[in-house]
């Protein structure tokens, strides 16, 4: 847009002057070998020069409304505001690291020196670990000592890896943009911190307030971020889910914040099945799958897509709540298998055939599982429940539960004889 360019021109001119003055004085030092943003930008410009701009407009630079519209028709949205794009047109695209501000450059020098220190520490520590591993167990002072030493050193090494990168502004920027590569420890650390700041607190609050924790499992310290989707709609922990919606198995997004792969068992339990004879509540297992691989980079788990002959022990059973029964808590647990070893699927399948009263505590004890993640949703009687019940052949679909009237104790009666 013409006036836009005109408005930003004086500012840009004076900026450009400082840039051209400041640039030669700067050493073009690239701190990291894998910084390739500047290069990519230059390449893009070189390509654009060969074709006229109006033929192939750049979404980061286009300001003409016609060209913008054409881009939009192609399905490419222009990047940023029009004012920003106009400003970028005349700017010499200096990469962030080389911005000519003295204090900033001094600060970067300090940070780069620190990073070099940390890298040296990392190589030293990994060499030390290798040396200790080469030493035979007797010389190292017994197996237990060697193991604990190695463990401590590895923890320290991980810590150093994070410290090396935590002060990098580009790492911060990438993480904030959601472009962090979770195979790298620094991004895993940052996303873990972010998760613990809010989402994990909410989850823990919900599962403790709704008493899932002492009722279903005695203890759970979530270390994986779990998101639950029914038909692409994310369900917050503890939300009420319509019976029609929950007929299909949910999709999970299980974010692991550690390196390596883990094999987990996924169990969905209803802990509020009313039992009229007992005048109490029973458990019911709605889903059980074993040997599900999760890692920091492959997070998506579709419960309906898991293989029926090697993973799914009990397929998805749509949760329904009878009319008049209090809401049902359906808690989902991600249970880590011991040493990430696969369980014997055939044996598990042969053993766990009964859905009713299959307690997660039993499973945990039987297969040495450890709860590393949890999620929770609730279901109650709604207008679609009846159809779902008929679909799945629920035995007492027409029955409505009623609370038994409790006769008040004589001294609690409203108008006893002593009052008269």
């Amino acid at each position, binding site marked *: 847009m013409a006036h836009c360019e005109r408005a930003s021109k004086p500012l840009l001119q004076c900026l450009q002057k400082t840039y051209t003055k400041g640039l030669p004085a700067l050493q073009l030092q690239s701190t990291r070998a894998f910084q390739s943003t500047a290069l990519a930008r230059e390449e893009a410009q070189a390509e654009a020069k060969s074709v006229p701009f109006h033929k192939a407009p750049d979404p980061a630079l286009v300001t003409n409304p016609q060209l913008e519209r054409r881009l939009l028709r192609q399905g490419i949205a222009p990047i940023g505001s029009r004012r920003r794009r106009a400003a970028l047109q005349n700017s010499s695209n200096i990469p*962030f690291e080389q911005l000519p501000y003295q204090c900033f450059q001094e600060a*970067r020098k300090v*940070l780069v020196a620190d990073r070099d220190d940390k890298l040296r520490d990392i190589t030293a520590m990994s060499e030390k670990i290798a040396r200790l591993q080469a030493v035979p167990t007797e010389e190292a002072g017994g197996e237990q000592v060697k193991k604990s030493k190695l463990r401590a050193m590895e923890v320290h090494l991980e810590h150093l890896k994070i410290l090396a990168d935590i002060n990098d502004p580009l790492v911060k920027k990438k993480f904030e943009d959601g472009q962090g590569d979770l195979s790298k420890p620094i991004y895993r650390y940052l996303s873990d911190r972010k998760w613990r700041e809010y989402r994990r607190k909410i989850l823990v609050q919900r599962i403790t307030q709704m008493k899932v924790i002492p009722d279903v499992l005695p203890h759970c310290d979530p270390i994986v971020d779990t998101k639950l989707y029914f038909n692409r709609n994310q369900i917050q922990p503890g939300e009420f889910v319509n019976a029609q919606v929950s007929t299909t198995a949910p999709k999970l997004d299980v974010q692991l914040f550690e390196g390596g792969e883990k094999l987990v068992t996924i169990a969905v339990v209803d802990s509020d099945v009313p039992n009229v004879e007992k005048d109490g509540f029973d458990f019911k297992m709605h889903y059980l799958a074993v040997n599900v691989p999760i890692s920091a980079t492959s997070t998506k788990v579709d419960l309906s897509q898991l293989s029926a002959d090697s993973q799914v022990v009990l397929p998805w059973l749509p949760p329904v709540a009878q009319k008049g029964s209090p809401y049902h808590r359906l808690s989902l647990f991600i249970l880590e298998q011991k040493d990430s070893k696969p369980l014997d699927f055939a044996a598990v399948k042969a053993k766990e055939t009964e859905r009713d009263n299959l307690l997660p505590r039993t499973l945990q004890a039987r297969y040495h599982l450890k709860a590393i993640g949890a999620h929770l949703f609730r279901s109650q009687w709604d207008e679609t429940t009846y159809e779902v019940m008929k679909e799945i052949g629920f035995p007492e679909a027409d029955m409505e539960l009623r609370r038994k009237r409790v006769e008040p104790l004589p001294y609690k009666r409203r108008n006893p004889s002593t009052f008269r």
Partner: protein
Amino acid sequence: MRPLSPVLASLANVFRIPITRAPVRPTLTNEILKSTSPRSFSTTSALSKRKEGYRGDRRILLIRYFLHHPLTPRPLRFSRTRFLRHWTIHRAWNLYQANQRRTHELELQRQWQSMQAACEELRTGAGDGGKLFRKSMIKTGVFRDLVPIEYARLQTEGPGREGWNHEWKRD
């Protein structure tokens, strides 16, 4: 005396005629009005008597007043890259300070350890069975036989105007 009508008063003002009013004798109506007005007897101020209930914390009111006052400068807002640069500088400064603290601590530790080593050397290496060491470690009178009180002056950056008090004598 009746008060002048407004027309007369303005005319008097124009022609600069001084109007002196005789002190008005208190009339009955004035007396009645004064006695019936509640203000003259009440000791509570009118504001506190008003029945509007609790109007909030005064401190919060003041904070809000000054925060939203037009003379208060706007909050500091940075653009993305500006903020990242700020963050970079902040981190570098923190790192620098932490390094300084660490070197200082290490220096103190080194000094303490060398002192310890010297004492140990005195105890074992002097060849007198540690007598010198034991003598030097006796703490009796440490808090009684202090330096003369005249030496206890405030620590200053530079030397005093007269460098040495030559006239001073212990008495």
